[in-house]
C-alpha cells in the first residue's frame, strides 16, 4: 500500500569511545518513497545506516519496521527482515561472477543442499537483470568490469533480497550522468512497486530529481525533515553546515603571469591518452574537467612518470625534461596529490611531523643518518599554522584528523619539498562542505604565492569556482581549453561529451 509507514526510528543514540556519533535521532520512511538523508561527513549518516543494516548495535532508541518493534542485530537479520543496503565502498567479490555476487549467501542448491545449482543461479540472475533493464552478462567476472557496472551489480544484489527497504549510500559517486539517469529509472520503478528507499548523497542537485523528502542531520543530531518540493539546495546546505554557502561562486580576478611553467606536448599512452598538449602558467589554477574515464588521472600519472608514455615531450620553464618515474617528477618540483589520500598520500598511523617531512627526509637527518627532531617538528608546526590544520599538536596521528585536515597534511608534505607545481586529483573528494571552503581558500592562496596548480575535479561547481582556465577531456583526448569567464556548466559538458563518433 503506497504511502503507509514502512519504517521509523525514534530516539536512536550511539556512542563510540569518546564520541557521541548519534544523539537522539529520528527518521521515518513510507512505502513508495525516496527519503534522502544529508549531512556533512561525520554527521552520523553512515552510523545510522550501519545501525539499520545490522552492522552496529544502537545504544538506545526504538526501530519500528512494518508496525513491529525490531532489533536489527546482524546483517543477516536485516536481510531477512527485508532491509538491504548498497554500501558506499563497493562490497563485491572481484574474483566471482556477476551471478555469484548477486546471490552470495543464498545460492540455489541441489537437493543434497551441499552442491550448487549453477545453471539456476545464472538463470535467476539473468531474470533479475532483465527485470531491472540492466544489460550485464551474469557469467562475467566482476573484477574485470568498470566501477559503474559493478555499481549496477550492487543494485541488482540489493533488489534481489526482495526487501521493502533499500538503503543506497552514495550510489552515484562513481557514475557518469547517463549512468546516473539509468539508476534513477531503476529507483523510480522500485518506488512504483511500493519499495521505500533511503538515499544518501553528497550531490545535492540529485535530490531535486530523485527524492520526495529530505532529512538533514548535523553533528549526530536530527535537524529537520522537509518535503523536497518545499525546500531548495541553499536551504539544505545552510541546514547542513549551520550557515549559508554560495554554490555559484567564481574566482576573484587575478592578474595572471605569462610565464609558462610546464608545457606538455602530444602526451599519449598505450591505453587511453591521445596527443594531449597544454601549457600551465605560473600562479595559475588549471582545472581539468571530464567524465569518469576521460583520462584525467591517467594524464596526471603519465606526467609524473607513474605510468609509461608512448609519446610526448615535457618542458619545465622552457627546458625539455625527461620524467621516467615519480622520483624524477619530485626532483623537478612536481607533486601529485592522489584522490585516494589514505592509500597513496598518507601514513595514517604516523604523526603529522613524519607525514610532512616524508618527501624531504634527507633535509631532516644529520650526516650520521639520525633525525633532527627540532627542525622536523618546526616545519610541521609551521605547516599547521600556515595551512590552518586543526589538531592539538604536530604529534597527532594522521588517522585521527578529519578528511579536510588530512588533505592539508598532504599539501604540507609537497610544500615542504619545495614543489612549484602541484597536481591535485579530486582535492575535495570525501571532504565536508564546510572544510571544502577552506581547501579552496588554500588553493587560491598557493596560486597567489606563485605555485602552479593542476586541479582535476569531477564537480563542475568546483571547477568553475576555482580554475583560471578549464581543460576538458573526453576519451583520452583534450577536447577544449576554456577561459573561466567564457565557461559555464553547459559548455563544459559539451566538450566533455565530444565523443568521436
Amino acid at each position: 500500500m503506497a504511502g503507509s509507514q514502512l519504517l521509523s526510528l525514534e530516539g536512536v543514540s550511539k556512542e563510540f569511545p569518546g564520541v557521541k556519533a548519534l544523539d537522539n535521532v529520528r527518521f521515518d520512511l513510507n512505502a513508495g518513497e525516496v527519503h534522502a538523508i544529508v549531512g556533512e561527513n561525520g554527521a552520523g549518516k553512515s552510523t545510522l545506516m550501519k545501525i539499520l543494516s545490522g552492522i552496529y548495535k544502537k545504544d538506545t532508541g526504538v526501530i519500528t519496521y512494518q508496525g513491529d518493534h525490531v532489533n536489527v542485530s546482524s546483517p543477516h537479520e536485516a536481510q531477512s527482515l527485508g532491509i538491504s543496503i548498497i554500501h558506499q565502498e563497493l562490497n563485491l567479490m572481484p574474483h566471482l561472477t556477476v551471478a555469484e555476487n548477486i546471490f552470495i549467501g543464498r545460492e540455489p542448491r541441489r537437493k543434497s543442499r551441499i552442491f550448487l545449482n549453477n545453471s539456476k543461479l545464472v538463470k535467476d540472475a539473468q531474470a533479475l537483470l532483465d527485470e531491472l533493464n540492466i544489460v550485464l552478462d551474469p557469467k562475467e567476472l566482476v573484477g574485470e568490469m568498470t566501477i559503474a557496472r559493478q555499481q549496477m551489480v550492487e543494485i541488482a544484489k540489493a533488489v534481489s533480497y526482495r526487501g521493502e527497504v533499500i538503503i543506497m549510500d552514495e550510489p552515484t559517486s562513481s557514475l557518469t550522468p547517463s549512468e546516473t539517469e539509468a539508476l534513477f529509472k531503476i529507483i523510480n520503478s522500485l518506488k512504483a512497486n511500493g519499495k521505500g528507499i533511503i538515499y544518501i548523497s553528497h550531490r545535492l542537485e540529485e535530490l531535486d530529481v530523485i527524492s520526495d523528502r529530505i532529512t538533514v542531520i548535523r553533528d549526530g543530531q536530527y535537524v529537520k525533515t522537509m518535503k523536497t518540493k518545499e525546500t531548495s539546495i541553499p536551504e539544505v546546505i545552510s541546514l547542513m553546515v549551520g550557515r549559508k554557502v554560495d554554490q555559484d561562486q567564481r574566482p576573484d580576478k587575478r592578474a595572471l603571469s605569462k610565464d609558462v611553467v610546464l608545457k606538455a606536448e602530444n602526451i599519449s599512452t598505450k591505453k587511453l591518452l591521445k596527443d594531449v598538449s597544454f601549457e600551465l602558467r605560473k600562479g595559475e589554477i588549471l582545472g581539468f574537467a571530464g567524465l569518469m574515464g576521460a583520462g584525467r588521472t591517467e594524464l596526471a600519472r603519465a606526467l609524473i612518470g607513474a605510468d609509461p608514455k608512448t609519446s610526448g615531450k615535457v618542458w619545465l620553464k622552457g627546458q625539455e625534461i625527461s620524467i621516467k618515474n615519480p622520483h624524477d617528477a619530485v626532483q623537478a618540483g612536481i607533486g601529485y596529490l592522489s584522490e585516494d589520500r589514505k592509500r597513496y598520500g598518507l601514513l595514517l598511523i604516523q604523526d603529522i611531523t613524519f607525514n610532512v617531512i616524508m618527501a624531504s627526509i634527507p633535509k631532516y637527518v644529520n650526516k650520521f643518518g639520525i633525525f633532527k627532531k627540532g627542525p622536523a617538528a618546526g616545519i610541521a608546526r609551521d605547516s599547521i599554522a600556515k595551512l590552518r590544520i586543526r589538531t592539538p599538536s604536530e604529534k597527532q596521528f594522521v588517522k585521527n584528523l578529519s578528511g579536510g585536515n588530512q588533505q592539508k597534511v598532504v599539501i604540507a608534505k609537497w610544500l615542504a619539498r619545495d614543489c612549484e607545481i602541484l597536481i591535485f586529483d579530486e582535492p575535495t573528494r570525501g571532504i565536508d562542505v564546510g572544510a571544502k571552503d577552506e581547501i579552496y581558500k588554500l588553493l587560491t592562496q598557493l596560486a597567489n604565492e606563485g605555485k602552479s596548480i593542476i586541479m582535476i575535479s569531477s564537480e563542475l561547481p568546483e571547477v568553475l569556482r576555482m580554475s583560471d582556465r578549464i581543460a576538458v577531456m573526453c576519451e583520452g583526448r583534450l577536447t577544449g581549453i576554456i577561459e573561466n569567464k567564457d565557461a559555464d556548466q553547459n559548455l563544459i559538458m559539451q566538450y566533455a561529451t565530444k565523443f568521436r563518433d
Partner: protein
Amino acid sequence: MSTTVKATTSEEVSGNKFMALIRREIGQVFAIAGLVIIFAFFSFMKPVFYSWANVSNGILMSTTVTGLLAVGITFVIITGGIDLSIGTGTTLCAILVAHYVVGWHLPLWSGFVIGMSFGALIGALNGAMIAFLKLPPFIATLATMKAAQGLALIISHLTPIRFDTVKGWESIAQGNLIGSIPNGVLILFGAAIVAWFILNRTVIGRYTFAIGSNGEATKLSGVKVERWLILIYALCGLFVGLAAVVLTARLGAAEPDLGLGYELEAIAAVIIGGTSLLGGKGTISGTIIGALIMAVLTNGLRILQVQQEWQYVVVGIVIVIAVFGDNVRRRRAGEIS
C-alpha cells in the same frame, strides 16, 4: 531514450569458445607446458628417467604426501590464509594413527577414520583461532605447528612406531588395485578429483573464493564467515590426515620427527600452480601440476646425480620463475598494473 545500461562483454568479441578457454586458462597452459618441457629435458638426458618404474615409484609416489597436503592447503590459500601446521600436523596424525591402530589392534580402515578425524580437529582448531580469536592465520597456525610437533614427540616417546603387526598396512600406498599404478597415487588423484568437486561445485567451495576475494563483503552479504572459515581449515585438515595415512603406509612406520618442512613444499607447489597468496584465485589442477613439477625436478636432478644441496637451489629458482612469469603475463593482459 533507452532505459538500459549499455554494456558489452568480452565474450561477444572473442567468438571461438576454445580459444577463449585457452586464453582464460593461459596460466595453466604455461604450467603444463613447463612440466612437459622439464620432463622432456630429463628424458633426453637420461632415458631411464621416463621408464615406468621411475615415473610410478620415483616421481608419482614421491608426490603423494606433499600432493595431498598441497591440495588441502589450496583451499586455505584461496581464502587468503595460510596453514603452517600441515607439516607437523601430518606427523602428529601419523603418530596418532599408529598409536591407536597398532596399540589397539584396530582394523586397517579405521586408520583412515582416525587420521582424518584428528586432521580435521587440528584444522578446526586453527580455524577457530583465526575466526573467533581473530589471530592472523600465520600466527595461529605457527602456534599449532609447534604444538603438534611437541605432541607427536610426547605421544611417541620419541621413537618410531612400526606397523609390522598390521596386516597389509603398506599396501595402502604400495599395493596395486588398478594395473601397476601404486595405490598411493590413486589416493592422491582420487582426493584431487573430490577436492575439485568441493571447490567448484559446492557451497563451501564458493565461500572459499568469496572470503578470499573480499571477506568483509562476504560477511556483509549475510554469510557466516567465521563458521565457514572453521570448516575450510577443517577440510584442509582432512587432507592432512589422509596424507599422514599414506606417509605411514609408504614407510611402514610413523616417524615422530618426519613432517616438518612438508608445509613449505606444499605451499611451493600451490604457488607454482598459479594460486594467488593474496586469495580469491586458484585451482586444484594447478596445484597438482605444481606438485608434479617439484617432484619431476627433484627426481630428475637426482638421476642426473646433482647434489641434494643444488636441488634445493634449483627449486628456489623455479619458484621465482613461475611466479615472476605469471606476473609478467598478467601485467601484459592488464589484470594487474
